[in-house]
Every structure is written in C-alpha cells, then in structure tokens.
C-alpha cells in the first residue's frame, strides 16, 4: 500500500526587499513595516521608492500589530492541497493602526463569528530562516 504524501503548505522563498521585510520581522520577533526614512510614511507591500516623497531611504519599523479586520476571504473550497484539511479557513486583511494593511491567517475563529471592523492583533512565527508567517488573533 502506497500512502499519499501529505501535502505541505507553500512557503515562499523571498528575495530583495521582501526578504528584508521577513528578516526584519524574524529578528525583531514582531511585525515590522517598511517606513520612509525621510517623510515617515509606512508602506506595504515593500516598494523601492516612497510613493509620496519618492525617497529611496527606508527602514523596517517594529509595530504593535494592532488593528482591525478590514476585509477577509472566508474559504470553503481550495485548490491548494496544503490547505484542504483546514477548511473552512479565514484569511484576514488587517488594517494596522499605522495605516498599511497586511494579510494573515485568522485563527480560532469560525466563519460567521468574524466580522469586519473586529479588533485584532498580528503576530509573527518563523517558517524556516527567511519567512515570517503572520497570525491574526482577535483581542
């Protein structure tokens, strides 16, 4: 009897600015968001230029991860075998207090319990040495 290999969840191999984001999060142990070093504007996903003042200077600033559910994908079907056992699962779009929105996994909440505007907190968990997985928890 051959056994089907358990499908694993996809973990990207980040590069460039995106790798810098993940390494900053992993080193700080908390969510870090790219910030313009000249005008202070937070931005996500990572971009080379500040879209407001066009500076190329930036850093990755640790943030508390506090925010609210701005939107979500409530998934009852998936083409990704790595996620089939999780159904139904909720992928949350979190608007951080600093402004940018991040996408992460809302845990311990069932469909129907989650609502837009709900306060949440985003935390990071290492997936290998170069990827910071984002968890979303209600507060």
């Amino acid at each position, binding site marked *: 009897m051959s056994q089907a290999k358990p499908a694993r*969840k*996809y*973990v*990207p191999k*980040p590069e460039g600015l*995106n790798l810098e984001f993940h390494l900053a999060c992993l080193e700080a142990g908390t969510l870090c968001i790219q910030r313009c070093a000249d005008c202070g504007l937070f*931005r*996500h*996903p990572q971009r080379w230029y500040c879209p407001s003042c066009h500076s190329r200077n930036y850093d990755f600033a640790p943030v508390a991860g506090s925010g609210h559910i*701005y*939107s*979500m*994908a*409530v*998934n*009852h*079907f*998936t*083409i*990704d075998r*790595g*996620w089939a056992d*999780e159904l139904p*699962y909720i*992928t949350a*779009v979190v608007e951080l207090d600093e402004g*940018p*929105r*991040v*996408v*992460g*996994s809302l845990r311990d909440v069932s*469909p129907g319990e989650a609502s*837009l505007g709900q306060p949440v907190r985003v935390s990071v968990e290492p997936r290998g040495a170069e*990827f910071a*997985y*984002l968890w979303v928890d209600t507060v």
Partner: protein
Amino acid sequence: MDISGAAAIVGVAETDYMRGTELSVPELVLEATMAAIADAGLNPSEIDGILPPPGFISSEEIAANLGADDIRYAVTVHMGGASPVAALQSATMAIAAGIATNVVITVGWNGYSAMRPRPDARPTKRRMEAGPFVDVSRNFYAPYGVRSAVQWYSMYIQRYVELYGVEPTDAAQVALTCREHAHLNDKALMGGRPMTMDDYLASPLITEPMRKFDCCLETDCAAAVVLTSPERAKDLPHAPVLWLGGAEGHPYPADEITNRPDMLKLGLDSAAPRAFAMAGVQPADMDFLQIYDCFTYVVMMELEAIGMCPKGGAKDFVADGNISLEGRYPMNTHGGLLSQGHAWGLNHVVEATRQLRHDAGDAQVRGAELGVVTGYGDLGDGSMAVLARG
C-alpha cells in the same frame, strides 16, 4: 487625434466551448483566427497587425501560419480578462495612426484541461503567462491559502456586500439571466440545462459570498476578431461594427488588492467615463450590455462602474428585469462566461458584433444600434468599448 470611429470590427469567430479537447491551445487559437479572417472576407496574408493572447502562442508563430509576411504591429496586452477589450483600443490606435490596416485580436486557452489533463495527454510547456501581479500574489496571498481568482476578489466583494447589503438572491439574478440566455445560443456549454433559484442557493459556497453558480465556467476554447479601417470595411461582406470609443483603467496599486485606498474602486470606474466621453454617448443610450462575468458580484460592481445605476444600485438594477432579453438593457445575450463559456471575454465582443450585425439569432435584441462591452481581469483591471452598427 480623435480616434472615435477610426476602426471597425469586420470579422469574428469562436471555436466550440469545450470541457476537454484533443486540440492544443495553438490549434484552437489558429482555428478561431482563420475563421475570423474568413468571416471578414480577407486573405490571411493580408493581416498586418496581431494582438495575441498573453501566453500559449506568439504573434510571430501566428503570422507564420497565416503567411502574413509584413507584420507592422504586434503587441500583447497583459490585463488578464480585461485584455481583449483593451486590445480593441490598441488595435484602433494602430489603424487610426496608419501603422497597420488589418488587425487580428485572438485569445484561447485550456481553462478546463489545464487542471484536468487526460491521462494519455503529452505534457506541454505552452501555458498562460503569469500576470503582472504574480509576485505580490505569490509572496503575500498564497502563503495564507489564497491563490485563485475567487479568493482574491472576495477580499473586496466582502466589503461590497456588507456596505450595500447585497444578498445571494441579488447576485443570483445575474447567474439566472446568463443561464436563460445560454439556452438561446447554440454554442453555450449550459444551453438546455436550466437553473432555478433553488439550484443556485443549493450550490456550495466556494469563498464567501461566492457560491459555485456565482463562478464562470472553466473552458477550452478560442476566439478572434478582425478590425480594419471604416474605408476598407466598405468592401467587406458584413455590416461593419464601429469602435466608437473605449478605454482601459487600472486600480491603484494594480498589483496589490489590500492596500488600495478605496478597495471598491475598480479599473473600470476610471475607464468607463472616458470611454463614454470619447464615444459621445451615455449609458442610457445602450441597447445591450456585454459585461465581463467572471463572477456575478463582479458584474454588479461593473454595472455601477459604467454608470448603469448608482453605487450600491446594482442589486435593484438586476432585480428589476433590466438585464433579461425582454428588458431595457439585455445583458450577456450569449450566456456569458457564466453559462456560454470563458474566452477571456472576447466572446462578449463576438456576441456584441453579432447583435450589431443583427445576426444574433434567437438572442437578437431588436433594432440594436449601440452596445457596450466590458473587460475585467487580473486584480481588477478594467476595459470598455462602445460599439455601434456602422
């Protein structure tokens, strides 16, 4: 330079809409292309402009099959399902500027078979080119189990239904109307397969609020259209269909959904007013609507974006019988992507052309003189064309 009316659609064709075929995508694309050129009354070697699909087959390879040895304009539009209607604008620009005279736009794909290869099928390296947003999708959405169109779009549709109180029974009107119209179309995959509201409501949830019957059909197919100058069109067999105006629009940022200042603003919101202004007509002047219908809720957002109704008004617009064949604005008279088949919306251009030729059979909108076609793709890119009987 005013390009309104500077080009006409003179040839259209589509393959069968199939779920499984032994034909490769290049064969499907070439079949549709040859048929559209024949419909235009042209010799394939007269083609001097090609806008191929993003992937599967190049303009160079198409030209080599056509014997078209003097290609003057070849460009690929990377807007997913918004590509074909945006390509109408690009083709018209090339014709108006005198760059090319006889331009073919074609798309095709193995939307069904790519996911379900036959056991005996030889592997192929020909595939769709990844969209411009693939980097963001791969890095920010896929790690969290979000990797298909229905999941991406649900991130704004969730907000749309909450903001305007849109119910599944509202979106159902779009699905049921497309299904009704499919029964009038010989090539529609869902022709002769009725759908009731109970059927719709019993279909399984995919990503909230979308159910299976809110989603378009995975299809193997191809389509093609040929444009030329209005002067050249006079010598060709069919009544020309004039491109009166059009536009493309891109949400900001176009490569990422979640950080848009207004997540409900689609590319079509900025494209539609420009397209109507160029055409010199109003939404209320339209005799029919061919709306890109990858998902029912996206259709509702598009109807608002093109100004058929105010923001949040689509649920009333589709419930009031406007969009049926007997309604004021018959919509997707071929069955659409939801019930005819999915040719990236180029099938909407084919159907609009047949309507304006008064050659749409049982689905003919009586006296059709003006119609709108929309495109929608990638992460909310939009395109639009106003077409007129010449």
